[in-house]
């Protein structure tokens, strides 16, 4: 296995975020190439590359584009989902900061393929500097004739609007994002109709993750066969794996789909000195956790589905043996409780109840049977909400109980912080608390 830097390859170069630097290393060649093709040819190239959505669901990108009805008279819109908020996920924000033109070139090519003349880049609001870089990239592109009227002499018009969110995880769900972009509360919409038919302003809309759109220029430049030669049978191409937590060198590792956690951990220098792996998420906190038994599972869509989990956003949060799984699960559940949009009662109330039970267990005040009660609450939420937010919350609870039931039952008599002192999992020593370590 070797790493394959494509999206990340220019991240460390001098003023990588500027148009001049991007063009100096061949940037916007793919857009020029695309304009010599028909929109159908561009769409087919992406479809045949078998690129699948990199934002979590893994839906084939080209197929999503092809759902836009040809006979709909309304304007079409392209919306880039840069609301990166899934716990553990930290790949899109560095891309926006280091190479916003990679995304912008992808936007130009993708908008051309679906014949959209307005595109939006919806970025979560809590990251001001990446937003600055994206705003500047768009301005540079207008000034250079890469956006606006008849771009690159092609006769194709495109406007791009950078839009900052205001703090709501739920807006990463595509229909909630559309509501938010329309100036409404970010609550998911019932589907059908799907956004491809009735999305933004009830017009045909394609919504893709940053990494998906940013992958398009390389597919156009080097070809579908080059892309599809990487990866595994049904999970083609390269992707950015994000490692965080108790590893020696957390960070972004771009590799062909199907690498294993063992391989990634080796590149990241392994678990911090003197410690062992306890559990990890394969694709953010909404994907069921795995353990050291799963180090050789291929990290692709099928490999992880076979283990009852998901590739998600390819965000490996790694925890060593000092970590309380009860504490971690509680904090994930509190995240979902906080971020539930409130639309569906099972999600809004159910996550609150999960939090109550987990807090009791964390404090060592659980009662016999509370772990089963936890799973009963899970049952009352599962499959009973509009969008996948609630399912994500359940994924961490059920998988944590499945792997570490004993540790939850310790909560019937002993606080988690006594069972596994919390200071030990911190990455720094706390003044005055050295003795405890």
């Amino acid at each position, binding site marked *: 296995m*070797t*790493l*394959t*830097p494509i999206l*990340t*390859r*220019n*991240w460390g170069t001098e*003023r990588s*975020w500027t148009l001049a630097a991007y063009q100096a*290393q*061949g940037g916007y060649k793919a857009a020029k190439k695309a304009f010599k093709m028909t929109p159908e040819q561009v769409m087919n190239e992406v479809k045949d590359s078998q690129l699948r959505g990199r934002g979590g669901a893994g839906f084939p990108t080209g197929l999503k584009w092809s759902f836009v009805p040809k006979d709909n008279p309304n304007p079409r819109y392209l919306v880039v989902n840069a609301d990166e*908020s899934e*716990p*553990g996920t*930290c790949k899109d924000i560095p891309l926006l*900061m280091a190479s916003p033109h990679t995304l912008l070139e992808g936007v130009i090519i993708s908008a051309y393929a679906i014949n959209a003349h307005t595109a939006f880049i919806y970025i979560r*609001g*809590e*990251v*001001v*500097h990446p937003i*600055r*870089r994206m*705003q*500047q990239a768009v301005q540079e592109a207008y000034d250079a004739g890469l956006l606006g009227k008849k771009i690159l002499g092609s006769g194709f018009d495109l406007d791009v609007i950078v*839009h900052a*969110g*205001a*703090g709501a995880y739920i807006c990463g769900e595509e229909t909630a994002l559309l509501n*938010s972009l*329309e*100036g*409404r*509360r970010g609550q998911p919409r019932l589907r059908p109709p799907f956004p491809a038919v009735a999305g933004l*302003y009830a017009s045909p809309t394609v919504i893709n993750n940053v990494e998906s759109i940013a992958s398009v220029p390389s597919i156009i430049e080097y070809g579908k066969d080059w892309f599809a030669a990487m990866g595994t049978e049904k999970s083609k191409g390269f992707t*950015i794996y*994000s*490692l*965080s*937590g108790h590893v020696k*060198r*957390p*960070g*972004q*590792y*771009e*590799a062909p789909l199907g690498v294993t956690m063992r391989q990634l951990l080796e*590149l*990241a220098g392994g678990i911090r000195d003197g410690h062992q792996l306890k559990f990890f998420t394969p694709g953010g906190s909404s994907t069921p956790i795995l353990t050291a038994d799963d180090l050789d599972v291929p990290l692709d869509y099928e490999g992880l589905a076979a283990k009852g989990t998901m590739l998600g956003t390819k965000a490996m*949060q790694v925890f060593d043996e000092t*970590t309380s799984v009860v*504490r*971690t699960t509680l*904090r994930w559940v509190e*995240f979902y409780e906080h971020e539930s949009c409130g639309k569906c009662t099972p999600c809004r109330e159910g996550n609150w109840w999960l939090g109550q039970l987990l807090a009791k267990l964390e404090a060592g005040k659980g009662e016999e049977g509370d772990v089963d009660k936890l799973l009963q609450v899970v049952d009352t939420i599962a499959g009973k909400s509009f969008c996948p937010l609630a399912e994500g919350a359940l994924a961490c609870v059920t998988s944590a109980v499945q792997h570490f039931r004993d540790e939850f039952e310790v909560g019937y008599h002993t606080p988690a912080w006594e069972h596994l002192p919390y200071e030990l*999992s*911190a*990455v720094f020593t*706390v003044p005055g608390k050295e003795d405890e370590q």
Partner: protein
Amino acid sequence: MTHEHDFADTGFLDTTDQSTAIDRAALDQLEAIAERYPVKRSALMPMLHFVQAIDKRVSPAGVEAIAKILEITEAQVQGVATFYTMYKRRPAGRHHIGVCTTALCAVMGGDLLLEQVEQTLGIAPGETTEDGMFSLEKVECNAACDFAPVMMVNWEFMDNMTPEKAEQLLDDLAKGRDVTSTRGPVLTSWADNERVLAGIPDGKANDGPSAGEPSLEGVKIATAKGWSGIPKGVRS
């Protein structure tokens, strides 16, 4: 005296404070934001960010102005303002401090950092110091997990925090010394950055590095080993 400012915890708009600094120029700016979009209601969120830049909170006057420009009701504006955590009911501090305490950051030290910041500033999350210098928030995952534990100041990254760095940071800010974000510019204020979120550039895009070290780990290894993703013979 401290006060809570998050809508999420305290309900609706604070109508007891009618003060505003919204003038003709600010109204013109709000109208200009509305014109960016094919359908003007889409401008509601950037307009709320702009109101915060001017009034340090979502002010009653700001809500009224937005409703008028967008031709929607004030209740509709408030309905949106109260949904999103970045909109504040009461004035935020000059510097808005965020400590990430979602699972991974919490475990790696975020909980300890939050405790420390609370003690140093003498306020709880959701509160602003009496002198208006600092407000504090427990933030949810900020997409910087490979830099954990993470703090945010005015929504700029302060990566790989430790108790010593946090202490120094708060001291420097309190004394008005320059503090540079680990991946961004010298910190100015929360309100200044709200302008950027409203879509008004501040000319600082070229400040700071292209990326932090963790973002480059994979590329570094690939370069050292001669690995590449692009086809052989293609110049990169």
